[in-house]
């Protein structure tokens, strides 16, 4: 669907959903770069309501024909609904469509958060003089996510609720199954890591938490003053062990020059202290070590899946080839570092 066609179809869809509105128009549709799991566009919605002209900056997230990872768009939508209006800044989720009739593939629409940009893991000093401020906020927000009681949350209505003792096995089984399905060539390093993880399971968490699943600086918007304005990309959210999120955010891949300062922010020990203060939980060092190796396994499987998507022709976005070759190559080194080789 071309950009003009998408803009037309989007306006038609919104017209059908906004019963109280007239003169519904869409302008300025433009695509964000990056993120092969969803196509992300910004646009401005214009309409008239009760005689008054109105407009709002919105974001469209649409599935590509083949997605990088199998994720549930309902989960991402529910995650935004769970945290909107709380002390975890997220956009307002507005419309979700599970079929492709309106725009060619499933999609959802949310508000655009004004101000803020995501950091690149290839930037040595992404936050400049605001590194300390961003670091504290980043880890405290993660703690607040984990502090949230998942019981009454919209996300919990659709998420599986594993026994805490089974969190590790559920996640490892999922990603090993993805690896079995998607590897195009044998992967001796990640297979060795999986065997090691299975031989040494972690202690269970004291309780289930909402796990973002992809919490890292690339999915957090920060404005020019160092304020975190939004946490995005909740498509891998689930209920599980909070150490999973801590470990993922601290994977050395996301701080390519200085792994001692995850995401180019503050040192690991201080990061964990902020997280503990905000979450009310205590880091279990044995569990954390397990989830750190798991995080690199998960990353490696994602890069392997991106290789398959690209090689099959299902999705030829160059971000997939870049992820497969650069990130995959680096992740193998990280896996070996973590295993002591």
């Amino acid at each position, binding site marked *: 669907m071309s950009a003009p066609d998408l803009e037309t179809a989007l306006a038609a869809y919104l017209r059908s959903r906004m019963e109280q509105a007239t003169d519904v128009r869409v302008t300025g549709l*433009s695509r964000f770069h990056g993120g092969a799991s969803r196509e992300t566009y910004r646009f401005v919605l214009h309409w008239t309501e009760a005689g008054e002209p109105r407009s709002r900056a919105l974001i469209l997230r649409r599935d590509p024909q083949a997605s990088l990872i199998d994720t549930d768009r309902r989960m991402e939508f529910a995650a935004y609904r769970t945290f909107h209006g709380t002390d975890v800044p997220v956009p307002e989720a507005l419309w979700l469509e599970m079929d492709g009739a309106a725009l060619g593939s499933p999609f959802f629409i949310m508000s655009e958060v004004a101000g803020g940009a995501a950091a690149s893991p*290839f930037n040595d000093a992404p936050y400049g003089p605001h590194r300390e401020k961003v670091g504290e906020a980043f880890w405290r927000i993660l703690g607040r996510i984990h502090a949230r009681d998942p019981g009454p949350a919209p996300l919990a209505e659709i998420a599986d609720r594993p026994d805490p003792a089974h969190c590790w096995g559920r996640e490892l089984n999922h990603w090993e199954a993805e690896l079995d399905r998607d590897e195009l060539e044998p992967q*001796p390093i990640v297979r060795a890591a999986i065997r090691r993880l299975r031989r040494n399971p972690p202690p269970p968490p004291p309780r289930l938490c909402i796990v973002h699943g992809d919490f890292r600086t690339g999915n957090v918007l920060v404005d020019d003053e160092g304020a975190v304005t939004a946490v995005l990309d909740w498509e891998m959210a689930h209920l599980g062990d909070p150490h999973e999120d801590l470990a993922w955010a601290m994977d050395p891949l996301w701080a390519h020059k200085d792994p001692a300062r995850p995401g180019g922010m503050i040192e690991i020990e201080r990061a964990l202290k902020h997280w503990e203060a905000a979450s009310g939980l205590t880091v279990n060092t044995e569990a954390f070590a397990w989830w750190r190796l798991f995080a690199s396994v998960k990353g490696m499987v994602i890069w392997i899946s991106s290789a398959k998507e690209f090689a099959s022709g299902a999705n030829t976005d*160059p*971000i997939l080839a870049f992820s497969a070759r*650069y990130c995959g*190559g680096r992740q193998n*080194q990280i896996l070996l570092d973590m295993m002591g080789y």
Partner: protein
Amino acid sequence: MTPAADHILLNAIGTLTTSVAPEVTTPFGQGQLGLIAALMYFASLEYESAADTAARENREMRSLFADAARTQTGMAEEFQQALLDAANSTDADLCISTLNRANTGLKALLIRLHEHLEGRTEDEARTLENRIWRFLRASADARALSLPELG
């Protein structure tokens, strides 16, 4: 043959970034162009080293399998035979596709051997396992791609 493929790719990157990029007006297009340039850079690196990396790995794995078949006991006959057959195999030519095909088969067997050796306490098993870890380290380091320093 001149110009060589890596030279062509690097020259094309220069053309993309200096002549084409200024014509691309959207952030999405500029981002895609940057990624494509990075991928071309990676291809230029691999033009030089990919065949050598695969050939070296194939040689080392065959040596590992020969030693494993000779020193390890208690393995299934089929497995031992597979190790011997792999140890005695050769690369039909030096085309990268041929080398990679062999590399894939050898790595599948390497995973089996690695799993077999884990947890064993005999000296020969420990020596072989350490050798596998050193092989994996060398392989990962040889295959990792670096981003160009942007000045």
